[in-house]
């Protein structure tokens, strides 16, 4: 996948979710959701507001109980007796970092180091602060920090316990582009160090850039996979052709080219061709256009973003509910 270096996943899954359902009374937060997250993977969890993303994170983090279904987190079955052990092996950063504003950055982290029972907490705190580039703000009161810096303190807190799985719930929500980039860099570094990251986000370009695989949840799990595969599943491959002037008889021209399954006009001098293999068919199309005397401006494969995939699936749901 573009922008994401290859990593090797451990075969044992970090998170296994099997037909998990959570209801609040009559309202279903998510239903019959199943997926796996491999160790060392950055797993994107996407969905519209109210889709059940945060509830899923809270459920896997043992904050709330599932209504039915099973799961294992960090290799530990999600069960009442294992709640403390699971929490010992995971860390969760909620959307709002939830810092004690009258305490300093170090004091906030000392508190959590104590709750995790960490050995050599001072060294761990230093390392966590260095990881988020906050070493020089260790003595500052959290109340005096900007939103971006507070978010970084929240991230440092999640790093403290060296968790097997890190749940990050909208970690870049409300951050400016510079702070967002810093969080992205941190996630990339964590990925390279083998930490499993479960990332819920609204930012599709963020998921596309950072995640090995994504799941799209809208109460039920709509899809899960690599973005490349999701694009292939949902969209036919197309070539976009631009000519200087409109073609005289585009139908005769395009249907005569081997490999072109169909075509449509997309404005003056612009055509979209359905093809099984854009790289193989593009030269044929170029030759056909040149032979027909057309002035070719550009020929390229149409790229569908993760946003296209997301909107396609979410719109399907909206339409289904409307019927």
């Amino acid at each position, binding site marked *: 996948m573009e922008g994401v270096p290859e990593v090797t996943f451990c075969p044992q899954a970090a998170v296994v979710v099997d037909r998990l359902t959570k209801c609040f009374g009559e309202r279903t937060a998510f239903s019959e959701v199943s997926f796996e997250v491999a160790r060392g993977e950055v797993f994107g969890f996407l969905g519209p507001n109210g889709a059940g993303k945060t509830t899923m994170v809270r459920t896997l983090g043992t*904050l709330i109980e599932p209504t039915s279904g099973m799961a294992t987190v960090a290799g530990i079955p999600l069960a*009442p007796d294992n709640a403390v052990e699971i929490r010992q092996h995971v860390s969760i950063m909620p959307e709002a970092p939830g810092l004690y504003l009258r305490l300093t950055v170090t004091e906030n982290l000392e508190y959590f180091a104590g*709750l995790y029972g960490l050995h050599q907490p001072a060294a761990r705190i230093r390392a966590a602060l260095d990881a988020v580039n906050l070493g020089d703000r260790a003595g500052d009161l959290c109340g005096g920090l900007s939103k971006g810096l507070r978010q970084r303190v929240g991230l440092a807190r999640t790093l403290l316990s060296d968790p097997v799985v890190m749940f990050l719930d909208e970690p870049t929500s409300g951050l400016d582009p510079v702070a967002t980039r810093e969080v992205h860099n941190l996630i990339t570094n964590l990925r390279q160090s083998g930490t499993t990251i479960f990332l819920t986000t609204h930012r599709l370009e963020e998921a596309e850039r950072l995640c090995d695989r994504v799941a799209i949840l809208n109460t039920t799990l709509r899809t899960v996979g690599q973005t490349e595969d999701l694009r292939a599943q949902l969209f036919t491959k197309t070539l976009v052709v631009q000519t200087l002037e409109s073609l005289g008889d585009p139908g005769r021209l395009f249907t005569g080219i081997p490999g072109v399954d169909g075509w449509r006009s997309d404005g003056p001098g612009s055509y979209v061709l359905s093809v099984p293999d854009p790289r193989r068919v593009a030269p044929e199309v170029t030759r056909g256009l040149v032979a027909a005397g057309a002035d070719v401006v550009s020929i390229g494969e149409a790229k569908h973003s993760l946003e296209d995939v997301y909107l396609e699936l979410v719109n399907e749901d909206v339409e289904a509910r409307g019927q």
Partner: protein
Amino acid sequence: MMSIDTARVRAVVRKELRDYRRRRSIVVTMIILPVVFLIEPTLTVFLAPAGTNLQVPLLLLLLIPVVTPSTLAAYSIVGEREQGTLEPLLTTPLRREEFILGKASAVMIPTLVLSYAVFGLFLAVVGIFAKSAASAAVFHQGPVLLAIVLLIPLMAGWAVIVGMAVSVRASEIRVAQQLGMVASFPPLVAVILLALGVVHPSVRVALLFAGVLLLIDARAVSLVSRMFDRERLVTGNRAARPGGTSRLWRGRSG
């Protein structure tokens, strides 16, 4: 049997005390209230004519451990919830018993220090500066003095636990603090009965009352622990219970 990790409890206590020290309003309130309750008995001892019954002013000192912690206790959980710090806390391995114990201890420590300090200061002032008759009248109230020594931690314990029980369920800090203050007063009924002479103060009565309050406090701690429902605190919803699995989870999740 649930194991309690004392290191985690200490971490909660340390953080709470740190947080209190940084809140001027808390420090001022905690100091002013005991001073106010010190003034009345001191003035009575120094200004009242000889032969005045000193039980009532002495028992006023028992208001200190009741009033001082109630605001802090009521704030303890709903306050964390309102400032958004509760959820990150609940994601740690901290068990609910450890959380309750840590929070309660953090309120109890300054309350006991202040209550005993004020009581000690009162006795010292009376012993050194009061006329010998007045001083003797105070120091001859053996059962009352014993009751105060025994009841300070128990009254404080009641106020703290009741305040936290309200805090677990309250949706707003202000409501929690008002309810917590009101709910912390019932043990004072016994004090009033003593002061009005309905119950004659004696060592036996003091020990009996202390024993009953100790039992109630111990029971209340476990009750508050059971009221502590992570799901409700995080989402505002109580867990749905199809098939009874939720009850099982809530009862054992720590």
